């Protein structure tokens, strides 16, 4: 019987809620394929998380334990999961595409002489074959990707590609089995220190209803003033894509994307932002998106409600005037 195994992510004993999206993905694939869905929580002293996962509609939850799994290191996680999968084989292993998963899943897959399809945004089940959809060329195209070889097949799903709130609860709590794995000290070569936040959190963009965001199209630091005037006119906050913050033109707490903030405002107005995947992932939950970009092929237009193909320096000044007029 084929098994789908969802690896639940926890960090320092705290469940990463993106894991619910992965369970939702697993439930959808299980419904299509008829395969058995199981989940595993990997860490040290994570029984409570396993118990929480057991409330969802899964056949079984494993609590994969080793003291060596806290703090997280790629060596320990790859070793532990390799041992676990050796004893509890799965056909398809699903994980969320987090920075932690990216850090170890290619190592784990290679150690098992198999492969991972990473950053998938969906799947198809056609003629008894599973295909995974992923974006290519920064979102300009999507690819249907299939597995060759004998597996296990690893897939990581992009943040937001499935609805965590649509996860089905189980009729009764699923059985939880504790599996202790051996992780010898010599296996772990990295010594991680405490996680910390660098930028002073001067602004919490997750609370902003309106966000005006700038990308490389803003061209120079002095032009950010124009975007700020637009944000002020709308009563919104200023934000930016990564390159702007890397240049130091705006502080890091204004960065939107996989490395920065994830926001879901009422309005996200993107100025001169092309729509790279790492940025979109941080704002695709916005209720409405307006994009201004001079490149008609910019991927940002895929997710825009209203799109303007043009020069933002020509459009933003009259836009600010019209907003002021409308607001009286």
């Amino acid at each position, binding site marked *: 019987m084929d098994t789908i195994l969802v690896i639940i992510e926890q960090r320092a004993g705290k469940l990463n809620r993106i894991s619910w999206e992965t369970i939702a993905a697993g439930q959808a694939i299980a419904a299509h394929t008829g395969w058995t869905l199981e989940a595993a929580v990997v860490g040290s002293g994570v029984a409570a998380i396993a118990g929480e996962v057991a409330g969802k509609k899964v056949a079984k939850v494993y609590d994969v334990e080793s003291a060596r799994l806290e703090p997280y290191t790629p060596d320990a996680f790859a070793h532990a999961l390799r041992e676990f999968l050796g004893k509890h084989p799965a056909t398809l292993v699903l994980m969320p595409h987090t920075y932690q998963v990216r850090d*170890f899943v*290619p190592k784990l897959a290679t150690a098992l002489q198999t492969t991972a399809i990473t950053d998938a945004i969906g799947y198809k089940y056609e003629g008894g074959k599973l295909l995974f959809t992923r974006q290519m060329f920064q979102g300009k195209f999507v690819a249907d990707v299939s*597995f*060759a070889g004998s597996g296990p097949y690893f897939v990581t799903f992009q943040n937001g590609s499935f609805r965590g709130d649509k996860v089905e609860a189980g009729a009764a709590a699923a059985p939880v089995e504790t599996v202790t794995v051996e992780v010898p000290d010599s296996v772990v070569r990295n010594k991680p220190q405490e996680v910390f936040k660098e930028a002073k959190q001067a602004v919490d963009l997750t609370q902003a209803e309106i966000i005006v965001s700038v990308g490389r199209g803003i061209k120079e630091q002095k032009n950010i003033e124009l975007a700020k005037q637009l944000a002020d006119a709308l009563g919104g906050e200023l934000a930016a894509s990564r390159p702007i913050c890397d240049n130091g033109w705006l502080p890091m707490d204004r960065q939107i994307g996989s490395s*920065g903030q*994830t926001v879901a405002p009422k309005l996200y107005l993107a100025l001169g932002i092309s729509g790279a995947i790492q940025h979109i992932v941080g704002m695709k939950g916005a209720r409405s998106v*307006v994009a201004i970009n001079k490149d008609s092929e910019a991927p940002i237009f895929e997710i825009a409600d209203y799109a303007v193909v043009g020069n933002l320096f020509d459009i933003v000044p*009259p836009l600010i005037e019209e907003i002021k007029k*409308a607001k009286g």
Partner: protein
Amino acid sequence: MKILVCMKQVPQKDAPLKLNDAGTWIRDDVSYEVNEPDAFALEEALRQKEKHTGEVVVVTAGPARAMQVLREALAKGADRAIHLEGDAFVGLDAYNTARAIAAAIVIDQGKDEKFDLIFTGLQSDDYGYAQTGVILAEILGLPHATIIMHIEKTDGGIRVKRELEAGFFQFVDMPLPAVLTIQSGINKLRYATLIGIKQAKTKPMRKVTMAEVQSAVGGNLQKIEKLHVPQKSKNTEFLEGPPAEVAKKLVEKLKNELRVI
């Protein structure tokens, strides 16, 4: 510090891309450039060499046009280049690309090139898998860390600053040798100087054919069945006209449709 930088040539960021007739890949008639994270990885390697002395070797796997990436790297200050050259390297999955690179760095004069550090960019802008560096570490049996924003030499090896989500970071102490995948923005990229461009022409450029690494490479374990234009889930309304008119139209939408004014 002896540092290997794995670099990739990808279609230019803003290049208009078209699918081939079969829908299996893009048409090749586009302009190419260095994968941006790889440019940052090279810059970091050059800075480490300037700080600690040593050697920077750059490697790429790709067709003849990919040599341009190596030439630019040599012009910026890399010492040697290795080009796994051939169309056979196009379309290899990350696992095979890593295996080919691992084989290439071993076979030079039968000597194992013992690097202190191996860098890759954290991911490529064309595939976006973010795997090759981590796979390479596993193949070579080396420790690794990903999405690196700072590297410092320590008595025991290195201390790296790993970027996490939502503005978080983490320092990690690691022994050498190690593999690191480098995040964009770790530093500021330099331009090649005219002298550098001139010197690049005489720096060693070793070519490696697929035949030489064939025994290390296998069949791809995953396959791109088809590429297509993304299906739009949103009904995007394009607002057109001269700027003053567009501004008026947009404000009307913001007010009456989106209700944010």
